[in-house]
């Protein structure tokens, strides 16, 4: 059975997420919208758990077109990590 290390895929961090978001909408907008999403979900920064990052990604997806694309990308990366962690050996 494959081991998760063989995939070389780490859990995305909040820093990774905001950076990717900033590449699409600009750093100020990304930082602002991310902060508002975290706040409206009642979370604290830095967001660390995969479940919370996924909630923020889903929230960001509701903001606008490019945000939706960035949020969906983040969601795929988080679920990939979670699914690999569950279905292959650690």
């Amino acid at each position, binding site marked *: 059975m*494959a081991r998760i290390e*063989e*995939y*070389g*895929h780490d859990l995305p961090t909040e820093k990774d997420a905001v950076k*990717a978001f900033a*590449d*699409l909408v600009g750093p100020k907008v990304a930082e602002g919208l991310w902060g508002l999403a975290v706040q409206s979900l009642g979370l604290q920064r830095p967001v660390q758990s995969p479940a919370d990052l996924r909630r923020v990604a889903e929230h960001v997806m509701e903001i606008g*077109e*490019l945000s*939706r*694309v*960035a949020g*969906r*990308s*983040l969601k*795929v*990366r988080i*679920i*990939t990590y979670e*699914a*690999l962690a569950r*279905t*292959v050996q650690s």
Partner: protein
Amino acid sequence: MRSTARLRDVARLGLDRELHRDYLGDVVDTVAAAMDTPFALVDILLDDAQVILAGHGPVPEWVAEAGGTPIEWAFCGMLLFGSQARAVPDLAADPRFRDNPLVTVEGFRSYVGAPLFSSTGHVLGGLCALDTRPRAFPDDDLVFLAEMADEAVRRIELHATPPP
């Protein structure tokens, strides 16, 4: 990869949305049958991930759950550069792909893909066929795949998610 004009086109068509797209099932089934490959996919290239809109063949469980993969594992990523149908007869021998976990762990060995061009000229993603053995794909396979990619886009544009 992160061209905002291209990604806006992806969003315009709603291709980042998590929807079931029955209308692409015939396309991937036809491609797999014609190419004699166990796998065929329609995938969309987002900024940091690829998402799979339709697939033929048993994709790995974790890919099905995520609905895609990280962008760095997307074989169709190369279609953004060159914009024509491409084949890789042995992924394990190609320096661009030999360390890709879809090759090293999941065992994909050969690839052929054609870009999905939107009506506004952006590459949305790819229509591809994959095999678990190294093999060559003749030129007429590339021509066929390009035609099928155009048909996939015609269906995508026809079913585009209307703006809210």
